[in-house]
């Protein structure tokens, strides 16, 4: 049995355990009383805040139950926010504004003031929480994206930059390679050398706690990560390295299953990835070196259940690989994070909730992880695939509904798509509306800022949650039957399932069983293609990138060969190549390094 089989068992056992505890709470008086006492204590210690209208509200809403069995079902079955199994949230408080008129202390044992603070003491005034809003951007050359970053974060308390790369960069190819000129700076920004990376984050204090960078790239992720470190080192000196915060996607499994941006054979990619994770979990303790992503699986056409099931099983497969490498679960567990899609299908009402629960139980009971390694830390992006070109302004409404679902699911951060995405990399007009959509939901409306659990736990949500959990476990069993995640990939299992789902989705659009407003329902026959501002990279800029690369290559011509040879030696010897890679990037371009590594480990062979 692979670890995935153990995870299935663990969840089944845990569900049985909850049922048993519910019975015990009803039959064993002492146990029932203990639960009731805890419940009353939590309620009593919940601070009371107030809405701007003066309406008083608890910071944490709880179901109106007072019967020990039901209390056991709630506390053990889903847990308070920030408590195992984390169904209601990875953290105790999220999105809440600072307390107005605080009256009492905190609740629970995990609270900020739980251990040391005296009960009933006034909580210290705390800093405002950072915004969960993340806006993914990248276009043109490094300086263009840099300018966009400054524009986006101008009004924010913290700079959380989310970076998109162009096609050549995603495939580890240089901008001067055959036939890629047209792709330079399209759909993301072009990075060829670490000098581009220096330009990209210019003006930002890379070592500051209020700065973090996220980089959406997987195939050449270790090389890009090495460039990031080299750029930070160049600007701030080596002491900045342990302070670096951020995320690099580096999710090879989902690339092989859905997104296709893979450049080395799977086994070699995983080896390079583990090298990087081993290094960053030790040297960059605040870095998230892999973002286990369902987004692209969803965008490629998977159903929500497939998306969550493949993402979670990929996560468990990484955990298994890292454990086998001898890295302790307490070292890597807390550094794993997740990324899911949020569309309009009903499953999204509870998809993240079910995922958090399965991850927590699996990591605790099948991998022995402590609380920090049990937390499913989630970034969500609204669904790009749900957006359509026909009467595209409707996309604002679609994204707003998806944002609502994402925050109802307690996502830790979120990107909202721009309405013009069916056409182009977002233009400023639409990206501003996308950002404001989040602010309206979180800051302007009272839906999320006063009370945790405001919209969780409805009977419908619970029904979806249970159905989704059962369906995810069923998918796990299928994968386990094929021999685990890697074996299932070999069998093309995930790929063919995703492709079948995508085809069904298209069929449903064309036969009308899946209504898409303005496309197959209420469509305006007269509508013409709208005039949308297209964000394109001018020819001269593309040429500038090529020229810069030529200059870099010329400058380092003498050193590059030696650096590549040194890197080859380390790889051939089977050592961790990442520390050497950080030196290599100082004199070699992305394409030079990719090319050399491919000579040693080969090319990825695509699956149809």
């Amino acid at each position, binding site marked *: 049995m692979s670890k995935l089989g153990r995870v299935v068992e663990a969840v089944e056992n845990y569900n049985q355990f909850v049922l048993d505890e519910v019975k015990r709470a009803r039959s064993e008086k002492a146990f029932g009383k203990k639960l009731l006492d805890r419940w009353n204590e939590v309620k009593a210690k919940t601070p009371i805040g107030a809405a701007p209208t003066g309406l008083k509200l608890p910071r944490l809403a709880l179901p109106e139950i007072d019967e020990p069995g039901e209390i056991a079902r709630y506390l053990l079955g889903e847990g308070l926010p920030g408590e195992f199994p984390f169904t209601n949230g990875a953290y105790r408080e999220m999105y809440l504004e600072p307390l107005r008129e605080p009256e009492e202390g905190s609740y629970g044992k995990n609270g900020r003031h739980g251990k040391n603070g005296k009960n009933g003491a006034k909580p210290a005034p705390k800093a405002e929480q950072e915004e969960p809003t993340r806006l993914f951007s990248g276009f043109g050359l490094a300086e263009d994206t840099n300018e966009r970053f400054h524009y986006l974060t101008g009004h924010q308390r913290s700079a959380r930059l989310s970076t998109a790369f162009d*096609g050549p960069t995603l495939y580890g190819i240089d901008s001067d390679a055959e*036939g890629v000129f*047209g792709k330079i700076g399209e759909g993301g920004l072009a990075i060829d050398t670490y000098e581009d990376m220096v330009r990209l984050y210019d003006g930002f204090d890379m070592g500051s706690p209020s700065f973090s960078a996220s980089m959406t790239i997987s195939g050449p992720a270790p090389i890009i990560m090495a460039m990031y470190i080299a750029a930070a080192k160049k600007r701030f000196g080596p002491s900045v390295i342990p302070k670096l915060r951020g995320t690099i996607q580096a999710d090879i499994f989902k690339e092989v299953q859905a997104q296709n941006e893979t450049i080395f054979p799977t086994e070699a990619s995983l080896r390079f990835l583990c090298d990087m994770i081993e290094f960053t979990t030790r040297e960059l303790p605040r870095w998230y070196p892999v973002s286990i992503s369902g987004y692209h699986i969803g965008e490629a056409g998977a159903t929500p259940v497939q998306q969550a099931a493949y993402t979670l099983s990929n996560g468990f497969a990484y955990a298994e690989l890292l454990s086998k490498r001898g890295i302790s679960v307490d070292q890597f567990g807390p550094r794993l994070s997740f990324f899911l899609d949020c569309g309009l299908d009903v499953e999204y009402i509870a998809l993240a909730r079910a995922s958090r629960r399965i991850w927590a139980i699996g990591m605790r009971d099948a991998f022995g992880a402590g609380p920090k390694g049990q937390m499913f830390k989630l970034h969500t992006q609204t669904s790009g695939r749900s957006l359509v070109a026909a009467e595209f302004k409707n996309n604002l409404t679609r994204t707003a509904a998806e944002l609502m679902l994402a925050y109802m699911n307690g996502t830790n951060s979120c990107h909202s798509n721009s309405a013009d995405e069916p056409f*182009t990399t977002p233009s400023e007009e639409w990206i501003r509306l996308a950002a404001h959509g989040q602010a309206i939901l979180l800051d302007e409306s009272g839906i999320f800022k006063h009370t945790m659990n405001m919209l969780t736990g409805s009977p419908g949500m619970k029904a979806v949650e249970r159905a989704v959990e059962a369906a995810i476990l069923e998918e796990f069993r299928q994968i386990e039957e094929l021999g685990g995640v890697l074996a299932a990939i070999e069998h093309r299992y995930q790929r063919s399932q995703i492709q079948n789902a*995508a085809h069904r989705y298209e069929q449903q659009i*064309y036969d009308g069983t899946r209504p898409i407003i303005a496309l197959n329902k209420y469509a305006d026959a007269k509508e013409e293609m709208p005039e949308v501002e*297209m964000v394109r990279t001018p020819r001269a800029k593309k040429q500038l990138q090529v020229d810069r690369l030529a200059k870099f290559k010329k400058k380092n011509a003498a050193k590059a060969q030696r650096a590549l040879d040194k890197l080859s030696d380390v790889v051939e010897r089977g050592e961790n190549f990442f520390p050497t890679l950080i030196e290599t990037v100082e004199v070699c371009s992305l394409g030079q390094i990719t090319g050399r590594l491919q000579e040693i480990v080969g090319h990825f062979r*695509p699956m149809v």
Partner: protein
Amino acid sequence: MPAPIRVLTAVPICDGHDSAINTINLEFIRHGIEVVYMGYHRYATDMVRAAIQEDVRALGISSYNGGHVEFFAEVASLLKKQGADYIKLFGGGGGTITTADEAVMRRKGVDKIFFAGTPLSEMVEYVHQHYGGARKRGGKAPTAEMKLARKLTEIEDAYARGKKKRPTAHKKIRNPKSEIRNSKVFGFTGPGGAGKTTLIDELVLRLLNREPKVRIAILSHDPSVVGAGALLGDRATMINSQDERVFMRSMATRGQAGGLSPATEDCLQLLAQSNFDFVIIETVGTGQEAMPFQTGLVDKTVLVMNPDYGSRLQLQKIVMLDLADIVVVNKSDQERARTAISEIERRLDQNKRSQTTVSTVANRHRDAGVDELCDLLMEEG
């Protein structure tokens, strides 16, 4: 019956968005079209070479991450430069391709762009209407490669129209004169999932590396869907075979059982006489009773097997184990491999003729087993 329309589809370099094209491929196939699919992240030069070799009616490109104006223009200009603009260029990219882009692209030689929201049925209809009729080729003198590709099409079409009947199973093809037939022909067969395609591609890589002037032809087969077209997807995984020294042709079985097409023998004969050093023919995944290479044209037959063929009894039923010159146990890094190899060797001992077994891990880079297979095949005799 008219011959099925053949089109080639692909996704451009540095683009992995294959969801749309996968759906379109399936729709094409359901409506009788044969699709040679090259996969994603493909160079313009590779697409054009493939379109010419496959002699398709049209080349369809699905582009979703920008740079489409340049990319389509590059493909169109390459087709024109080689005198192959009788192959029509079409494509799409959802909302990323604007009407203004389309105007430019059409001027540069693109036949048709499908905009966002185009129903699949409309695309199918367009292909049938515009790429299905009688074929007009351009005025430029065809290259040798084009001539060969066209002759192969003529053979396939003649069989499809019923003008030629499939040769009876045991009729030996006259062995052409040795000075004409200068290619060594290798036949690869075996069950689906054994890794034939990967193995051949790795072999091609070695042949290309060892002999700078080598010319290789590959005749690869994929099954036709009953009453419909076919997905000919080997080019997508055979990354090393997309090379100017390799001529590759993908064929659909068009209703014939046993792993080959009715036109295979004639096509193979033509290739064997066409100045290639090596001709490699690959069957579709075959069953236990299959014995696809009954012609005198195949010099060495290679049976590729997976270690998990089931029990030892199953081996007795595999006819090709009697006929193959070389038996490859691929995926020999699997747990069961050692048992498999010894069981197969014992089974071959019964035959009392010289057969060789090789164990390979084709999907491992620089695999020594594949090197050994390459040595064996290159040996004279």
